[in-house]
């Protein structure tokens, strides 16, 4: 099956969007080749601005452009977008609810060899907590393309979390992405694997390896969360296992737990993700193995429950 990194899909989608809509402006902070906003620059250099290595200022410029009725896409690595520029996002974009789409790439452990300084496992937690921020993590090429289009069509700040590594396709063109809606990929019994991003593929692999097939759900919108679906899963399964390439603190796992804990039909919730620790340099697959975020770890969690 064709493999494509979600950042590559972002670049392609953005290149289309910038040609179709003259209100679209793209900002990058000296990482255009890596975030793939360079694709948009190729086709529309006059509306692509590389602001240099200054992420806080980039978010402020994004706010000013959005206050001037532009639809602004601002990209950097997740570490520097959500991390370094957190307060600019919070105060200059979030508080005035400006129309900026922060599309952050190289999120999570899959950054690999660059090591812990660049492996952002905290961005979902940081972005979720900002009032009015929509937080989306698409899992593959098709979903990314549709998600980019969808965020351009809503008014207000959005954070889109994208990955560096190539991932297999989960969806084809028959899929319809909708902000705030989870997608049940397969129905099973007892256990529901609730996954996001590249962990969707791992959850599907895990499901195929298990004798008693679990339910597999893709939650691409972390906020606003599909609470109705989570409640239904809690009611109809004995265990929910959340799967994410992010800290187990503050991301998908926490979001799902919040819903289940206040639900009348609560079930057990377990979290697969990066434990409360920093990563390290290494090949992405080796890191997933060592830090317990792959199909094997999911299978074990299902069997040990």
């Amino acid at each position, binding site marked *: 099956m064709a493999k494509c990194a979600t950042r590559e899909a972002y670049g392609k989608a953005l290149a289309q969007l910038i040609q179709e809509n003259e209100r679209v402006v793209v900002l990058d902070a000296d990482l255009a080749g890596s975030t793939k906003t360079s694709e948009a620059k190729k086709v529309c250099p006059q509306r692509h601005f590389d602001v240099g290595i200054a992420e*806080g200022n980039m978010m402020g*410029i994004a706010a000013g452009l959005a*206050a001037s009725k532009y639809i602004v896409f601002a990209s950097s690595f997740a570490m520097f977008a959500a991390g370094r520029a957190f*307060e*600019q996002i919070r*105060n200059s974009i979030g508080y005035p609810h400006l129309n900026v789409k922060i599309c952050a790439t190289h999120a999570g452990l899959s950054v690999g060899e660059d090591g812990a300084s660049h492996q952002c496992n905290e961005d979902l937690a940081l972005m979720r907590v900002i009032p009015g921020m929509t937080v989306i993590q698409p899992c593959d090429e098709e979903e990314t393309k549709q998600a980019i289009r969808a965020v351009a069509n809503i008014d207000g700040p959005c954070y889109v979390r994208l990955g560096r590594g190539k991932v297999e396709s989960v969806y084809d063109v028959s899929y319809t992405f909708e902000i705030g809606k989870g997608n049940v990929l397969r129905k099973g019994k007892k256990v529901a694997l609730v996954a996001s991003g590249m962990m969707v593929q791992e959850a599907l692999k895990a499901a195929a390896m298990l004798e008693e097939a679990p339910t597999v759900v893709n939650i691409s919108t972390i906020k606003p969360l599909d609470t109705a679906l989570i409640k239904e899963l809690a009611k109809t399964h004995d265990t929910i296992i959340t799967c994410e390439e992010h800290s187990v603190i503050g991301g998908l796992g926490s979001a799902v737990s919040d819903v289940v804990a206040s639900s009348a039909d609560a079930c057990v919730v377990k979290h697969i993700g990066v434990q409360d620790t920093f990563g390290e340099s290494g090949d992405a697959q080796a890191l997933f193995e060592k830090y317990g975020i792959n199909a094997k770890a999911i299978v074990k969690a299902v069997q040990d429950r």
Partner: protein
Amino acid sequence: MDKQELVEHARQIRKHILKQVYTAQSGHPGGSLSATDLVTALYFQEMDITEANVNSIDRDRFVLSKGHASPLLYAVLCEKGLLDERELLTFRKINSRLQGHPNMKYVAGVDMSTGSLGQGISAAVGMALGNKLAQNHHRVYALLGDGECQEGEVWEAAMAAAQYQLDNLCVIVDHNRLQIDGEVAKVMNVDSLEEKFRAFHFHVLTVDGHAMDEILSALSKARENKGRPTAIIANTVKGKGVSFMENQAGWHGTAPNKEQYEQAIKELGGEA
């Protein structure tokens, strides 16, 4: 508008500032009073903001990067007839539109939500860039504090403003030489601001920030200047217009009591 009328507006604006801070028993009078003449010149002479276009972006815009001077912004909007005077009494109180630091979504005429220092100038750069993209003639003004220039983001924004040749951007620094913890020069010296902005490829002007002629002349020169942004370094007096507040860091974020308020209003030629 002749100079005398501007001076009169500035006097009224200073009274509006004191009324807000006194009523709220909270807020920042010192840096509001130091920048009053600068902002009066902008709103009553330089900028094309009117009641008819206040809700639109099809006009010049002003970013109060030193957002703690919010009483000044609300006072100017009130003096301009864009905000009801009675509303000034709600400043900093619950359910008010007049937040401690300005929110652009609440009040027409507040062009950017600010308060966290260093961020407003970046937004102003974004607005000026937007105006260039839209090929309109509107100008963007950003008012910064001198202490604010200790924030690294100010210089990131300055670099970008020069890079994109934003001659439609005018940065004004309210150089009153005092910040919360004391003298700017002692806390963390920012001088020479002129040399710094010049090194960042700005067109730089220095004015007495209380001399209306000088302010108007600088704003006019900034408008005529092409190819690069302008920085106006305005030498000002913190607490200007109220004798006991002048040059006192202690009045950065302190409200006057009844006696002090009455004295201040009296000095400004009014009745409390």
